[in-house]
Structure formats: C-alpha cells, structure tokens
C-alpha cells in the first residue's frame, strides 16, 4: 500500500519502533485512548480505539455495531409496503433516499414501471433528502473544528426543506412516502412555488457556508492536506459518494447508471476534486448541495402531469426472483439486494449502505495523524451511525 504524506510515513516508522521497544523500560509506552462509543464527535455510537504516542496516532481501529438494529432480518418479517418504514431509519438524515432503491428493486421484480410524474417527484424528494442531509454536514464540520456558529445556520435552513417534506408527506424525518408503482399522494397546492423559493434559500446558504468556513484561514489550515485518501486506496476500501469523488474518481450513479428516475432530464454536473483531503470532501459536498438545488428547480419547472401511481394489485405479492437496485444516496452508494420467493414479504434483503464502507478506511487514513485531525477526518468522511450499523 502506498504511503502518501510525510506524516503518515513518520508515523509508520514510529509505530514500528513502538512495536520493537516493548521491552525497553525507559521508553514511554504510549496510551490507548477509547474515543466513543459515547463521545461528542461521533454523533452516535461509533467507538474508535486509538493508540497514541503523545498526540500522534500510531494505529486506530473503528469498532461498530453498537447501534445494530437488525434491519435486514426485520425486513424478512415485513410485507413489501411495510419495509419502507424501516429503511427510512437507516440514514436518518437522508430519509426519503433510503426508500427509493428498495422500491426500485421491488418494482424490478414485479416488472412495474411507475408513471412519469411519480419518477420526477421521486427525484425531487430524493434530491431534497440530499440537501437536508448534506447541509447539516456543511455546518457540522464547523462544530467539529470548534466553530460553533455555522451549524445553527445549517439547522435553520435545513428546516425549510424539512417543512417542504412535511407538507407533502406528513413526516419530517421519516416520510415513508414511496410506494411500489408510484407515490402515496400528489403535491399539495402551492407547493411548487414554495419549493422554488426554498431552493434559492439553499443556494444562498451554500454561499454563506463558503464565505464563513471555506474562506476562513484557520479552516483552510485545519483541512488542507489532512486525511488524504488517494483514489486507489479509496477504491480498494469500497468508498463511494462524495468521499470518493473528492479523491478524483468521477463516478456518480445518478449519471452513470441507467435509472428510471429523472436525473437524465436535467442539466447538472458531477463535481470531483483532485486533492482527496478533508477540504476536498467538504468542497465536493458543498457543490453537490448546489447541484441538488439546481436539479430540484429544473425538475419542478418541467414536471409532467399525469397519474402518480401505476396500477398495482391491492395485495402486493412479488414474484419469485432476485433483484439488485442501487442509487447515489447522500452518503454514497446505497443498494438493496432483494430475494423473493413469491410471498407477501421479501425472503432475504441485503442492504449495502455507504457509511460502512466509507469508515472502513479509518485504520488506513488515521495512521500518523494528530488527535485533533482524527476529529477533522472523521467529520469529513461524514458517516451516519444508522447507516453503518443498519
């Protein structure tokens, strides 16, 4: 494996030395620090065991599973329409986006195609889930670095998006709105105009974050060159989403995969960054939020009329077979492998969530950094605990 930065090299050397000097009494041994499961920076229950030499990390090991809720198993005892209630809670900030790949997989099995309007609206909600999710990251990164203020702006402006979701679905966090063959209901009156106003707000929020954080000298110094993940390493660990795009890999399922959803009708851009450091990850996510707002506005402008629900049987029985569907969720690639034996519910569901793979790079990337940088890197990798443990 290639070692990228000088600090990682020196840490590698010192960790070798630490291993070698176990029996020499005069040397200090270093300290094992347990970050989490209860720690302000893990926003959830991730535990990271780090071995420190002073403030430098010799090695780090993430321990997950404190929040395992057994969703894959629970799906097996639910009917297909009931599953969306569960999977909402996987990436709890990207609520609606969790439902879409599962419904797509079920639709594949049933060979049903949702009507055009439903697909467009799905895409709208999908991108709004992305905005709700990533905008919180944009503020939270500041908190992890010690700047308290941006996160309040993020919460404030995210609230407008959540209000929109609530107006349509009735649920702020857990809309449970996607159905096999379409959506539960159509838009309420006046929603489109309001949504466009909110998207302007989201754009100005992004500008504000760019001003407040990215223009800040200290933020720059804390993030540039910290936690560099080369593209090859990122790919080896199966990273996806903004994390891998920040390492220069131009890969976005919304564009690269032939999906029934409406991204192909919009004019938008997949942003990548060559650096692969914490700053690049922040930058890419900021651009993605802007693109998401652009996509929403374009879709709302060209929204086709028509039904929002295809003809499906009252009692949904999915024919036997296997299907895989994945989408580019706010955190990265999320996919469902659904095995059906023809019953009311799935026989087996395998959920591929992005955060689990994204944090698996932690032992590699944390080697040799300082304790404050551990937090920077964890924050910039942006994982959601529910998305790691499912």
């Amino acid at each position, binding site marked *: 494996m290639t070692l990228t930065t000088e600090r990682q090299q020196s840490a590698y050397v010192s960790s070798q030395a630490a291993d070698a000097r176990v029996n020499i009494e005069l040397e200090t041994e270093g*300290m094992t*620090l*347990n970050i989490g499961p209860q*720690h*302000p*920076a893990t926003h959830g229950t991730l535990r990271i065991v780090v071995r420190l030499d002073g*403030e430098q990390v010799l090695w780090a090991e993430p321990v997950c599973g404190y929040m395992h809720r057994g969703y894959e198993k629970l799906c097996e005892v639910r009917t297909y329409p009931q599953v969306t209630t569960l999977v909402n809670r996987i990436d709890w900030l990207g609520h609606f986006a969790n439902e879409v790949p599962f419904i797509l997989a079920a639709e594949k099995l049933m060979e049903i195609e949702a009507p055009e309007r439903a697909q467009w609206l799905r895409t709208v909600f999908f991108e709004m889930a992305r905005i709700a999710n990533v905008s919180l990251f944009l503020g939270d990164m*500041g*908190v*992890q*670095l*010690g*700047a*308290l*203020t941006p996160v*309040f*702006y993020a919460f*404030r402006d995210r609230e407008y998006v959540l209000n929109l979701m609530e107006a349509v679905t009735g649920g702020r966090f857990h809309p449970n709105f996607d159905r096999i063959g379409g959506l539960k209901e159509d838009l309420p009156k006046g929603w489109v105009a309001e949504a466009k106003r909110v998207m302007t707000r989201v754009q100005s929020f992004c500008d504000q974050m760019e001003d407040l*954080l990215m223009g*800040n000298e*200290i*933020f720059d*110094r*804390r993030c540039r060159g910290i936690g560099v993940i080369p593209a090859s390493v990122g790919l080896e660990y199966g990273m996806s989403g903004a994390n891998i795009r920040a390492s220069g890999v131009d890969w976005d399922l919304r564009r690269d995969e032939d999906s029934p959803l409406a991204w192909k009708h919009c004019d938008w851009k997949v942003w990548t960054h060559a650096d692969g450091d914490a700053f690049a990850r922040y930058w890419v996510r900021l651009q993605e939020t802007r693109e998401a707002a652009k996509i929403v506005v374009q879709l709302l402008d060209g929204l086709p009329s028509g039904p929002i629900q295809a003809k499906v049987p009252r009692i949904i029985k999915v024919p036997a077979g296997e299907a895989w569907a994945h989408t580019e969720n706010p955190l990265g690639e999320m996919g469902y492998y659904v095995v059906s034996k023809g019953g009311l519910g799935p026989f087996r569901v395998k959920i591929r969530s992005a955060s689990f793979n994204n944090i698996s790079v932690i032992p590699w990337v944390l080697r040799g950094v*300082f*304790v*404050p*940088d*551990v*937090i920077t890197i964890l*924050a910039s990798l942006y994982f959601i605990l529910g998305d790691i443990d499912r």
Partner: protein
Amino acid sequence: MTFAVELAYWQTTTIKVLVVLGVIPVAAIVLGYVFLLKMMSHMQSRLGPMEAGPHGTLQLVADGLKFIQKEDIFPDRSDRFVFGLAPVVVLMSTFLLYIVIPAGPRLVVEDLDTGVFFALAVSSLSVLGVLMAGWSSANKYSLIGALRAAGQLIAYELPLVLAVVGVVMQAGTMSLQGIVRAQSEGEIFGIGFLGNPFIFTQFVGFAVFLLAAQAELSQTPFDMPVAESELVAGFMTEYTGFRFLFFFMSEFGSAFALSAIGATLFLGGWHFPGIGGSLADVTGPLVLGAKVMLVAFFIFWFRFTFPRLREDQLQAVAWKYLIPISLANILVTGVLKVLF
C-alpha cells in the same frame, strides 16, 4: 471633599476581600449572560434563554443554584485530595487578579508598584489548578487537556508579557494606577482633552495582548484544552456540581479580569476625559465596566467566529508570529521613547 472615616487595617482588608468575592460571581454572570448566552445566540440566529427572568437574565443564577444542588462526584480512581483542591486553585488565581485592578483613583485593593507584573504572574497560576485537575481525574481526556493547557500557557504567557512591556515603557511605571495616570495626563500631539490612551501608540501591543489573552483564557481559536469535539470537556470532564461551577466562574471571572487589565493598559482604565478628583471614584467603576465590555466583546466575538487551531499550529502562531511581532514593537517603542 474627604471621607473622615478611619478604618483599621483588618476592617479595610475584610471589606476589600468581600467586595472582590462579590465581584467575581457578578462579573461571571454579566459576561456569561451578555456574551455567552445572548450575543452568541443572536449571532447564531436564535434567541437564547428567554424564560428565567426578563429576557432570561436570571438564567445563570438559576444554573448556579442548580449546580450547587448537584451531587459532588469523585471518580473512583481519582486522587481525591488533589481533585477536590484543583477548582479552588483555579478560582484563587482569578481572585488574585482582581487585587491590582484599579476602578477609581482610590478604588483599588492594593496598588502594587509592580501591578502589571503581579497580575500576569498570578494569571498563570491557574494552570497549576488545571494540571492538578487533569492529573487527578484519572481520565485520559482530562490528562491530554491539562497538558495542552500547560503547553499553551507557556507559549502565550510570553507574548502577553511582551505586549505589556511596550505600555510599561511608555508609562514609565509598572503600577496599574500609574499607567492610568500616565494615560489621563498624557496628550496626543499637544491635544490633551482625551488624555493619551495607549491604544493609539501601542495598537500592535493591543492586538497581541488580545490574541494572547484569548489563548490564556482558552477561548475558541485557542480552546484546545477544552476542545469539546475532541476531548469531551478537557480537564473539566470529570467535574460536577459546585466544583464545575468554580471552573465556570473562574473562566468568566478571568475573562473579565483580563479584559479589565487590557482596558486599563490600553484604553485608559477608569479615566474618562474631563472627570477627575473624587468624582472619578464614583464614575470610575462604570467607565471601567464599559471599557471592559468593549474588550470582552472582541474576545467573545473571536470565540464565536473562528474554528479551533491545531495544537502545533497554535504553538506556531505564538512562537513564529506573536513573539517576534511584540519584540519588534518593544524595539520601536524604545527607539521612539528615546527620540521624543
């Protein structure tokens, strides 16, 4: 107009001690309410506390009462004696700071000849308490936080002292009363009605002083010792109840005291143009209070705006920038003093 009351030494001392003991919580509550609760909230587009008292004015009083009622927890493996003593040591250093700050021509606990020197010396005592707290807590986060605090103090005590040296040279005295008098009697290019607040001549010193005070107080860009996203609460992690309250009071009490020293050194202290004599004893505390709020505003403004520096970057700022700049400031001050 003179007061003909003659008090014995022990009487004046008792009065002074009681006044200082009363000033510290009041200062902590005023700063905490105005800046930490209200200014920060408004900067973050929220209201902050609104329920306790009008506009939440009594929030910190309520918080204080709550802290006193809380259980006083000692961690199982802590060094109980040191653990219990540490908050007292920290508060003690804050207490000592107030001794030399003049609030009027006669309103000063003790006008030491080496007032500035004394203030800067005792302000660094608090790190002893911090180290004691970090070591005795038997907690790794506390330990890291305490060691960071110690490293930070060593780095920032120096620019703080050097920034003050310029003022001392210009005033020709280390007594804080003397420095105030030098500012009130001075004149700028022959115009004397404003006096000569040293901020006009020592603006570099003022900037360095503010930054170093920020670090000395562990406020945000330099709050490594209590970095809550990394070290939970640093050296305070294991503290509860009134011992935590001691740390809190000491933090804001010190912020008030250092702001007061900054106001005294650079903004003319209790002096207000055109007011002198016994009247200044009445207006002095108010004038000084206003100036303190101004300096504290800057300190807290930084705190709510900037992200945190990393430990090595923090050392670099002190050793590579602040110390050379303040040394150059001393040099220029010295040259100008000899020339004019």
